[in-house]
């Protein structure tokens, strides 16, 4: 199907395959279509269609639909197939893609090595038939046969042309994917995936000091960023400071991996685990030498520990929405960072 579109940036056309979401088709062709969550929630990818009968809405109850005026033909590009040639208009500004942009691909992989990291966090890997590239900090949309709809998960690892992607999932009360992952034997399941997606990427050429603030499973993309930084000796010359917020020490994970990062670059890398519901005085772990622990919400701990020393910093933020909001307040009010040095992808 041919999709003909227009935006303030001009006109464009691209081919949308049968069963392919319009957003993913456009991104696959290198078009800078607007999006954030890519999974029906944020409303950022809204567009208008001239003839509603030319598209199929895959998720009429999508939370992001609250941003739409249906009678005007508005729809979410991430939740629509083209079922005939169609004409669309995109209201948001379309910035051009960076030159080193990695085009989106749709592919399949097998879930392997699913394992518990804590009582409510699981990790798993996906083995791909064909290698893919992604930038540190990016995510993919995953879909498995037993669970309706796609879910966005950030890659934990970092490797170019990789056949293995590593993810983490936190168990949520009504999270159907997490329930499926926790209750059944996921290993061996073939998952569909689309990616890479997301603009909160590590850009080593910026040559800045990294400040990462993560809550819970938001640590995934930060692990990828720190992995790349360590692999490429970025932290020989640039600082890296990570604040990782969880409730208690029992909820923390990746502590061995984080301690390894720090021991590779002890002068430049600092990692602080912020425990919102546990007093630090009671903590004794093998990591006490390399990791710092503090009590409090992660964005408040970050402000205290940074103590107004935000020299030449670019900041990355990921986590649950209230934590992201708090971290952004810290970065604007305390760090006084300009908005273009605050990187995060909004999932809600």
């Amino acid at each position: 199907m041919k999709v003909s579109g227009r935006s303030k940036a001009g006109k464009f056309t691209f081919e949308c395959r049968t069963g392919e979401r319009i957003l993913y088709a456009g991104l696959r062709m290198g078009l800078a279509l607007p999006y954030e969550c890519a999974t029906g929630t944020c409303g950022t990818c809204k567009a208008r269609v001239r003839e509603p009968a030319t598209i199929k809405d895959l998720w009429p109850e999508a939370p992001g639909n609250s941003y739409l005026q249906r009678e005007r033909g508005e729809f979410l590009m991430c939740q629509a197939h083209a079922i005939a040639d169609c004409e669309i208009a995109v209201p948001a500004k379309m910035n051009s893609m960076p030159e080193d942009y990695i085009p989106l691909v749709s592919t399949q992989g097998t879930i392997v090595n699913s394992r518990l990291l804590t009582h409510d966090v699981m990790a798993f890997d996906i083995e791909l038939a064909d290698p893919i590239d992604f930038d540190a900090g990016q995510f993919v949309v995953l879909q498995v046969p037993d669970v309706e709809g796609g879910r966005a998960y950030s890659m934990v690892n970092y490797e170019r042309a990789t056949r293995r992607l590593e993810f983490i999932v936190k168990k949520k009360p009504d999270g159907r994917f997490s329930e499926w992952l926790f209750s059944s034997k996921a290993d061996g399941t073939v998952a569909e995936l689309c990616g890479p997606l997301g603009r909160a990427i590590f850009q080593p050429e910026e040559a800045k000091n990294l400040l990462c603030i993560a809550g819970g499973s938001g640590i995934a993309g930060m692990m990828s960023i720190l992995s790349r930084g360590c692999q490429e000796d970025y932290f020989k010359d640039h600082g890296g400071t990570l604040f990782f917020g969880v409730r208690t020490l029992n909820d923390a994970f990746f502590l061995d991996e984080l301690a390894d990062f720090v021991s590779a670059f002890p002068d430049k890398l600092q990692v602080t685990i912020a425990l919102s519901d546990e007093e630090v005085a009671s903590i004794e772990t093998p990591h006490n030498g390399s990791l710092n622990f503090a009590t409090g919400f992660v964005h408040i701990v970050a402000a205290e520990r940074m103590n107004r020393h935000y020299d030449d910093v670019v900041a990355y933020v990921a986590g649950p929405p209230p934590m992201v909001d708090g971290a952004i307040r810290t970065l604007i009010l305390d760090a006084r960072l300009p908005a273009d040095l605050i990187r995060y992808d909004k999932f809600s």
Partner: protein
Amino acid sequence: MSWKRVCSANDVAANSLKQFDVDGVPVLIANLGDEFRAYPPLCPHMEERLEESGICEGGLLTCSKHLWQWEMRTGEMRGEAEKPLLLYELKQENDDVLVNIEKELEYEYEEDSEEDDDGFWD
């Protein structure tokens, strides 16, 4: 002209925002420390309530949802913003903050709404 009292000057802390209802019209009052400003209450981007999402720092208002920013004094766009803030005329009389409401100011959330559909798709 219809000047209406919105609040008292000390109802809104310095460098903060507070939303008021003025005869059914929602108005967001900003205290810049030395001056006040009055805006419609929602972010011109995706209709977030700026009283909750807005951050005031150094004369800039930032919506924490997508980091659109504006000069608080003028409503001019900064950074990622793609639409300016609208302002109500405001004056302070002694301790009272008054706003001139001719009609409720609202953002146009639909692009190209002036055009009819024929023109829109040309």
